[in-house]
Structure formats: C-alpha cells, structure tokens
C-alpha cells in the first residue's frame, strides 16, 4: 500500500517537470520587461502548480484537525499543569511554574523506596502493570500462536476463541472477573477447592498482596489473544523452507523455535508490545468498574489518581500534571519503537 503511494508520488514527480518547464520557458521568453504583475501571477501560478500546493487538500484538513484536537489539547493541558488552577473559577495564566511536578515527585520519593503516599503507589503500579502485563501477554500470545500454527484441527475456531475476549468491553470483563475472583462463590476458589488445592484459595481482589496480580491476570487473559494474532501473522510470513532446513540440520523442536523462528518475530514483538503497553496505561476502565475510584494503594494507577484529583477534588492543575506524566510514560514507550521504524526506513 505504502509503496503504491510512493509510486504514485514518484509518477507525479516525473510528470510535473514536463508540464512546468515549458511554462517557465515561454514566460521567460515573452515577458521580459512587463515584469512585476505577470511575474507575480506566474509565481502564484507556479506555486499553485507545485507539489506542495497540490498536496495541500490531502493533508491539510487532517493536520489541522489533529493539530487542534490532539496536539492543541495536549499543549493546553501542559499549560494548565503549569498553573495553580483549582476549584470552579477560570484558570489564571500569570504565574507559570513546575510546582505541580515537583509536588508529585517530592511525594513519590517522600516515603523512601518501598512505601509512600498515593503518588508513589500510583506510579509504581503503573510501571509494574506496564512491564509485567506486557511481557506476560506477549509470552502467552507467542505460545498460543505457535500452538495454533502447528496445523491443528479447528484452527480458525481456536483463533476466534482466543481473540474473542479482546472484543469485549472492559466493563463486561471486569464484572465477570469480579465474580470469578469472589472468594466464597467464585469459580477460581471453587475450582482450586475441587481439585484439592483449597489451601491455595485466596481473597484475590481484596487482599492487597494479590490485588494487582489478579488485575494483571485478567488483563493478560483479555489481551493475549491480540498478541497471538500479531505473532501468527509473523509466523506465517516465515518461509516453510526454514522449518525444513532446521529439521534437516537435526534441530530439536525447541531449538528450532528458539534459534530460528522466534528471532525473526522481532518486528511482531515490537508492534504488539506497543499496543499492549498503551492498553496497560488505559486499564482505568477495568479498575474503575471493579473498585470505583479508590482501588487502594495496591492497585492504584496514575490514570485513576488523575481522575480523582481532577473530578473528585477539582485540583485541575495537579490532575493535568499527572496526565502529562502519564503522557510522558506513553511517549517513552512508543518513542523507541518509532525510532526503530524510522531507522529501518519503514516510516
């Protein structure tokens, strides 16, 4: 698709000099002294005829809209985070400083490395969620993809089953995971009890020790299907001779995947990881449905805290600062990916 666009652009590249050059030549030839006026028009005509002007209608509207509603909003949010805005009056933009950010990071480090106020827990949990959830979802997704790729029966059915959870809303999955985690009547503890592992039964979503783990497990369940689909596409792109060559060379199944196949899935891994990380940052809905706006320190995340600060206590500036920190985190996740793509010339 992209190459076709390039080809079209290339074609127009070749076209334009042909049409443009004679114009210039005739212009230069006929009007040498009646310079100013016709020179202006010809420059305008030239400009109108240029690549740039001709491409304007295609990218300008979208750029303006995105610029205003995405980057404009981000910029304004940043500006608000520099103010002291709270309450229900209009913000004043007179004294701009980074006070909200210093307040946040002071709080994060206030309690040392292992504890602290809500800022510490929100930031810590956001990090943990980002890393552990992404790695776990990728691992499960890769495993599923390899299994589904091994010419099994009902392949399409399995693929659909694994992908299905992703099509469900967080609201739905949060509610039924809350049922599953119910320590008395929930499926998980019941199953553990039925197979004689009753001693492993826990208060999954009320014991602070397991809360975040329980949330991540549910999220992995929901999103590993997506990782599977991405990996499956990657696996299908690997020519089958390579499997055969590895087999001929006497590689075991495990060795073949580990040495030959998995290293070729790097591109799939990066693209799936980026999407999963973004989902991790958006786990707000899931937590909100499960716990309301107060999941407690063991499962609090930045998005949740931002919501509380802004709409619970009308600390708009502080909420905006948290939003910017979250934005920086998301950018930090995506930037290496974009850079990699750029270096490979795929951007």
């Amino acid at each position, binding site marked *: 698709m992209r190459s076709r666009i390039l080809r079209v652009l290339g074609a127009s590249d070749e076209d334009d000099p042909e049409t443009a050059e004679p114009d210039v030549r005739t212009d230069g030839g006929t009007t040498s002294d009646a310079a100013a006026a016709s020179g202006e028009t010809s420059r305008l005509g030239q400009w109108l005829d240029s690549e740039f002007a001709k491409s304007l209608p295609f990218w300008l509207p979208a750029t303006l809209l995105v610029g205003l509603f995405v980057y404009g909003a981000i910029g304004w949010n940043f500006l608000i985070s520099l103010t002291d805005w709270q*309450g229900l009056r209009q913000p004043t933009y007179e004294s701009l400083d980074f006070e909200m950010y210093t307040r946040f990071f002071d709080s994060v480090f206030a309690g040392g490395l292992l504890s602290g106020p809500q800022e510490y827990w929100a930031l810590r949990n956001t990090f943990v969620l980002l890393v552990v959830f992404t790695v776990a979802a990728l691992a499960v997704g890769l495993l599923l993809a390899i299994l589904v790729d091994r010419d099994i029966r009902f392949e399409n059915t399995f693929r659909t089953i694994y992908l299905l959870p992703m099509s469900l809303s967080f609201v739905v999955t949060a509610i039924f995971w809350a049922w599953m985690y119910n320590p008395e009547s929930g499926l998980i503890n019941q199953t553990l009890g039925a197979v004689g592992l009753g001693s492993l039964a826990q208060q999954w979503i009320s014991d602070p020790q397991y809360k975040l783990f329980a949330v991540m497990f549910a999220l992995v369940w929901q999103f590993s299907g997506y990782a599977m689909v991405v990996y499956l596409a990657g696996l299908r792109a690997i020519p089958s001779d390579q499997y055969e060559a590895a087999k001929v060379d006497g590689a075991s199944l495990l060795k073949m995947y580990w040495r030959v196949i998995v290293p070729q899935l790097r591109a799939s891994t990066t693209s799936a990881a980026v999407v999963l990380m973004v989902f991790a940052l958006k786990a707000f809905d899931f937590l909100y449905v499960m716990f309301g706006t107060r999941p407690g320190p063991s499962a609090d995340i930045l998005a949740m805290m931002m919501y509380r600060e802004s709409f619970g206590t009308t600390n708009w500036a502080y909420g905006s600062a948290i939003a910017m920190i979250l934005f920086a985190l998301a950018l930090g996740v995506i930037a290496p990916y974009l850079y990699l793509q750029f270096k490979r010339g795929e951007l």
Partner: protein
Amino acid sequence: MTSDTNLTRRRYLQGTGAAGAALTMAGCLGGGGDGDSDGGTTDTDGTTSSSGGQELEIVHWWTAGGEADALEALVEGFEEEYPEVTVTNNAAPGGAGSALDTEIQSRILNNNPPSTFQIWPGESLNTYLESDVLVDIGESVWDQEMRDAYLDGVKQLSQPDGDFVAVPLNIHRLNNLFYNVDVVESAGVDPSSLSSPADVLSAMETIRAETDATPMIHQTQAPWSSIQLWEDILVGSAGVDVYQDVLAGNVAANEQAVRDALQTLADYSDYFNEDAGSVAWDQANNEVIQGNAAFLHQGDWAAGQYKTAEDFDYGDDWDYVPFPGTDGIYHVVTDSFVMPTSNPSPEATEKWLSYCGSVDGQERFNPIKGSIPPRTDVPDEEFGPFLTEQREDFNDSSAQPPTIAHGTGVTPEVKSNIEGVFSSFNGSWNVDNAYNGLTNAF
C-alpha cells in the same frame, strides 16, 4: 490516453479534497456559531424567565428503581403546582454522584449550569462556595415558615458559610444495626440489650459460636462502608462531641478514641462475610434476607431492599436497633438541591427549591424513596411503620451529626484523603497506618 484519465482522476481527488477542506472550515465556523448562540440562549433565557413560560433543568443521580420513582412523583407534584414550568429531567447515573460531579463541574466552568442540581449539603458544598457559584436563597426560598419546620442540625447543613444555599429534601439515618430476627434469636442474642460497639463484638462472637451464619455483612470493595461504620463506632464509643471535634480536624487531640474505634473496626473485620472485598453492599445484603447472616450496619436505604424481598417482613423477619451506643442520635445523610449562579431560569429554580422545601413535595418524595422528610410537620399517613418509627426517633433526637462517608461532614478534599486512608485500611487493618493517615487527612 492514460495520462488523461490520470489527470481527471487526480483533479477529481483534488476536488474532493478541497470540498473536504471547505466542509471542515464550515464545521469550524459552525462551531464558532454554536458558541455565539450559546451566549445568546442565556440572554434569551433571561428574558423568558421574566416573562413567564419557563424551562427547568434538574440534574440528579436518582436513576435506580425506587429513587427514580420518587423523583418522578416529586416532579409530577411540582408540575401540578406550577403548570407554567416545563421540567427537563436530566439524570447523571452513577452511585452517589460520581458522574454528576464531573458533569456539573465542567458545565459550571463553561458558564452553562443547569437550573438546579442534586448535591449533599454541608461541607461538600465547599468546592462550590469557595468559587462563589451558589446563589444565597435565604430570602427567596427559606421563608420563616420553612425555617420553623426544619431541625437545627439540618438547617446548619444548608448554610455551611452562614447563608442558606441548599434545600434538603430527604433524610436517611446512618446509625442503624439491621438484623435477621431468626438468626439472632437462634443464637440467643438480644440486639436491644447491646449498649456499646464493644457489645456488638461479643454478640458476633456468640453468633459465630452458636450458628452457621455470617455474624456481619459488610463490603470493602469501596471504602465508604468502612468509613461510615467507623464513624458510628466512634460516635457510639466516644460520643457525639468527640466525633464533631474529629470532623473539625482535631484527630490528634482525640488519639485514643480514634485509635480505639479503628481497632474495634479491625476486630469486627474478623466477623465479616469472606467475600466482603468482591461484592457490593446490596449483593451482600441478600445473605441477611436469606437468613445466612445476622447483622448489617448500613443507612436505612437498606430497608428498601428488605421491603421488596418476598416473605421478609419488618418486625417478624428483620428488625433494627440504633447502632449500639448511638441511641438518641440521628446520624444524618441527606440530599439537597441548590441554585447555581448564571442560572438559566432563576424564577423556575426558586419555585422548584420552594417546592422541595414544602410539605407536599416532601410527602410525595420520601415514602417512595424510603427516607424521612427533613420537615417535622409532614403528616405520617404515607409512611410505613418503619419510617414512622424513624421519624419519631428523628423528632426526638438529641443530635443530628453530619457524616464523612456521605459528604456532609468534611470538605471533598478531606473526604478524598479519608477515602484513601480507608481504601488501604480495608484489607490491611493496620491501625497505626490508618491513624497516621487520618491525622494527615485533615
């Protein structure tokens, strides 16, 4: 030939692109126009309100069964009394105003507030009062007749800064200990003999020893239930004055009382249903109805659930006592309506607020909602036996303290901090941490 078709296609594309651009521009202009016309509507509304035909927009969070019916009845009565006003009933669903706050705050910031909206009175008005966005209705709505009919504790809540700004419409009682009669009897416990929060503890021990039932139903999924239980343990063991002093921010001065109350709550937690962390309170309450649990501490909205349960009658199957130690105290949870400034329909809003403060309005609303009217002169007929008893208790009560969990006792900022403390206390039950958290919360 090919280059020709190419050209036309390109020109065609250019055309659509340009059209798209033009449309976007038009869209932007339209947006600008909207903004202007908004400014216009407030103007025209100003004029319409002075001429008569009015529109009243009410924003509230009463969307669940009985609540929605109660509001419906109130609106109906209002429209009978003031036929010239058209009511726009704008619900912002979400328990206890979680979504409503967001909507109201952004609308006030955009200078486009509704005519009136539901809010807890008392300190939770703080955000709005600080920004000066509520109209003083001491003259226009709170006439002498209305002032005489309200009790002091409730009137206080309507004027946190001295001026009357809110009209309380209904009152729920928070300090109830509901129980399943059969379970309690089979354990040989007499709830009416309990006289302190500590007695509840020993009663629960007996229930656990004598029956298979869960001694107390509770939820720790969200922090509010534990906050309100802690409030009543504090009132019941240390008295209203200590409680009020804590609300005023003097936690350290009452260290022993606060710590003891936290410890008692932590002791209670041994007797909670095992799935307290995974259920909502009404889900858990089914266990009381089915006879699998004995006690429930909850506001009297819980009675609504018992009322709708089949074969579960007041007095025979379920009953309640004021939370032990809080006899004679009516721990008030109340909803009110207010009048924001830049009001689109000032006159209609005043009519609505006056109606909310009237005997007729409160008589229509409260029996259906399952609450009692804040006015003491509303006739009893419409209220069932349970609410009639509650009304007697209310009229005879010696104190009507506000609450933290339901917004009337502390500012939203403090409430949020306390919720933070209890969201970690729920589950960890670490008294030292919770106490330190509370001292920092105010």
